[in-house]
């Protein structure tokens, strides 16, 4: 058997595959954060809660309204996105002129409220969301058994990431967005409704988190604390990629998934810390992050 650093090739390949899938999750979540920070300069600590609300909306939608998984993929991000817009309109806008820290505190408080409320009703054990029938089973790849659902997560996440990148960097709407955050007064003078643009952007970032929540529902127990467990890692990914860099968030997300996956084979005890070690190294060498522009 071929060995790579003392690990059979098959196991090694399997771990790379899993790392890539986890990385796609990180990419999707950090992408939303990066869009919100890059365009609105809001450090959105409610992002994990939005991801959790996405999973919960999917679960409750199925249990009470009979909305199936495929419909939830569209409906959930819409609902949670609208909810996000409401938050932006009613709360975040009022403190937009203050220091970024106020936004951080506000969103953190909101996250605690959402989490606490749901814990009160649903407890913390979480509930299971069945894997949609068409995505059950798996492929025998030779080196591993790959569940169909995980392959789908990888594909869906990558498509959404690419779409977002294309929209912001390559379309007219994206250009407006970037210009609107660079110089809102000038954009307003050109007749562009900047406040609306900002509301939509926040809603879109939140919808991305909710979309990740839908993807996660059949994978992990749907529980009120699922978001806060992930949020800190995702923030580290954004910092490594460079705050606000969209392509940075996607590539770093995938890369960190791979690094974490390999750590789980070679030194599992460090699996939960390796991303932070990378973050420290990157901050020491390139304080603006791998893809960030030096201020």
């Amino acid at each position, binding site marked *: 058997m071929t060995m790579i650093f003392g690990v059979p090739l098959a196991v090694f390949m399997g771990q790379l595959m899993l*790392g890539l899938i986890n990385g796609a999750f990180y990419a999707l979540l950090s992408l939303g954060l990066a869009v919100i920070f890059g365009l609105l300069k809001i450090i959105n600590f409610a992002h994990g809660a939005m991801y959790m609300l996405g999973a919960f909306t999917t679960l409750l939608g199925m249990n009470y309204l009979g909305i199936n998984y495929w419909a939830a993929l569209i409906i959930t991000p819409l609902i949670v996105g609208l909810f996000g817009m409401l938050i932006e309109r009613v709360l975040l806008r009022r403190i937009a002129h203050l220091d970024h820290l106020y936004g951080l505190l506000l969103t953190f408080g909101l996250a605690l409220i959402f989490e606490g409320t749901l*814990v009160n009703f649903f407890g*913390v*054990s979480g509930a299971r969301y069945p894997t949609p029938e068409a995505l059950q089973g*798996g492929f025998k790849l030779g080196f591993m058994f790959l569940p169909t*659902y995980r392959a789908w997560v990888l594909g869906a996440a990558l498509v959404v990431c690419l779409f977002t990148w294309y929209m912001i960097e390559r379309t007219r709407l994206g250009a407006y967005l970037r210009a609107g955050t660079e110089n809102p007064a000038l954009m307003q003078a050109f007749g562009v409704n900047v406040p609306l643009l900002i509301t939509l952007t926040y809603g879109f970032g939140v919808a991305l988190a909710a979309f990740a929540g839908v993807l996660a529902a059949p994978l*992990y127990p749907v529980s009120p604390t699922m978001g806060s467990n992930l949020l800190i890692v995702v923030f580290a990914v954004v910092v490594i990629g460079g705050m606000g860099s969209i392509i940075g968030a996607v590539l770093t997300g995938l890369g960190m998934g791979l690094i974490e996956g390999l750590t789980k084979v070679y030194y*599992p005890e*460090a*699996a939960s810390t390796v991303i932070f070690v990378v973050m420290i190294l990157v901050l020491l060498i390139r304080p603006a992050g791998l893809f960030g522009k030096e201020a």
Partner: protein
Amino acid sequence: MTFIRKTLTSSIAIAATTLMASGAQADMSDNEVRIGYLADMSGSYRDLAGPGGLEALKMAIEDFGGSVNGVPIEVFSADDRNSADVGASTVREWLDERNVDMVSGLVASSVSLAALKVVEEKNGLAIVSGSAASSITNEHCAPTHIHWVYDTYPMANATAKAVVEQGGDSWFLLTADYAFGHAMEKDVTEVVEESGGTIVDSVRHPFPTNDFSSYILQAQGSGAKVVGLANAGADTVNAINTASQFGLVQSGQQLAGLIVFLNDIYAMGLDATQGLLLTTGWYWNMDDESREWAERYYERMGSMPGMVHAGIYSSTTHYLNTVAELGSDDPVAVRKAMAENPINDFFARNGRIREDGRMVHDMYLVKVKSPEESTHDWDLYEVLSTIPAEEAFRPLSESECKLVNN
């Protein structure tokens, strides 16, 4: 004359009763029996004790009549947030300033060990219902606490032995990388090897871990017949879910959960957990007596009780009975008297409190039903065998407790 005699007799009777009552009250500190309930009310261990445990405690008090020998019972409760510091300082305040007579609940082992130290220092009384660590009545034993429901010893022992006997003689261990996981790993390794099995490999994962796919893949690659889960709570749930997604059981391997609670199985569903062997201190559907209590609990909480909830009811009732019988809530006297009476209620069968503070009672080896076998939402276990009280727990001859003469 008759009239006078009658009045006289009744006055004496009244005087005597009053005297008796005040005599009893003299031994009840603050004219109240005060119970403090400390548990994780909002974090990862909330569902196995938490608000349900508090409700079970209140049920015990209500069923007892709300007072002991005419003295009211008061309940304090606090969320320890799984922090040893918060737990210890709360208990200190309860004992110093509120004269709490008995501390109940006590879930995360780390919190319990810190809180029990305070109780010992203050000569109070604590009954541990939620914690797993068997060290609570082994190297950390004290005359001031009792461990009621279960501990790591029977959980590891019975499950691992049963699995090896059924032919699962090579193991891969998935261990939570902290004190509890290490202790569990050690216990299981001993049992497996004694029963003639081998530990092929093990991996220690960080606590808590969200994604177990990588470890499950390693377990699949190891070729072991059994994958033992030396972790608890959300980690166990995640590991079992992931194993089911990767077809671990379908490809011929078996899972052995070592600390699994009813609420975990309910959360994961039978599709993912069917066939899992585990040990429990009690199961709501095991007989009429248990069902009767469980249904009353269900009406109040909307979920079926687990062994910790039932244990809290059982321990509180035994405590109140003892206080009533003794006419005193003095912790030292009560602790001593509690050990003198055997415990037999819907929860504990053949129960008694040993000198190390371990309440030994019958434990049960159960198998998780398949979706086809289950008739309703909470119909989750099939009881395979009863492990007699005297065999289930660590024998006193192996004890390191300072209260045991070995």
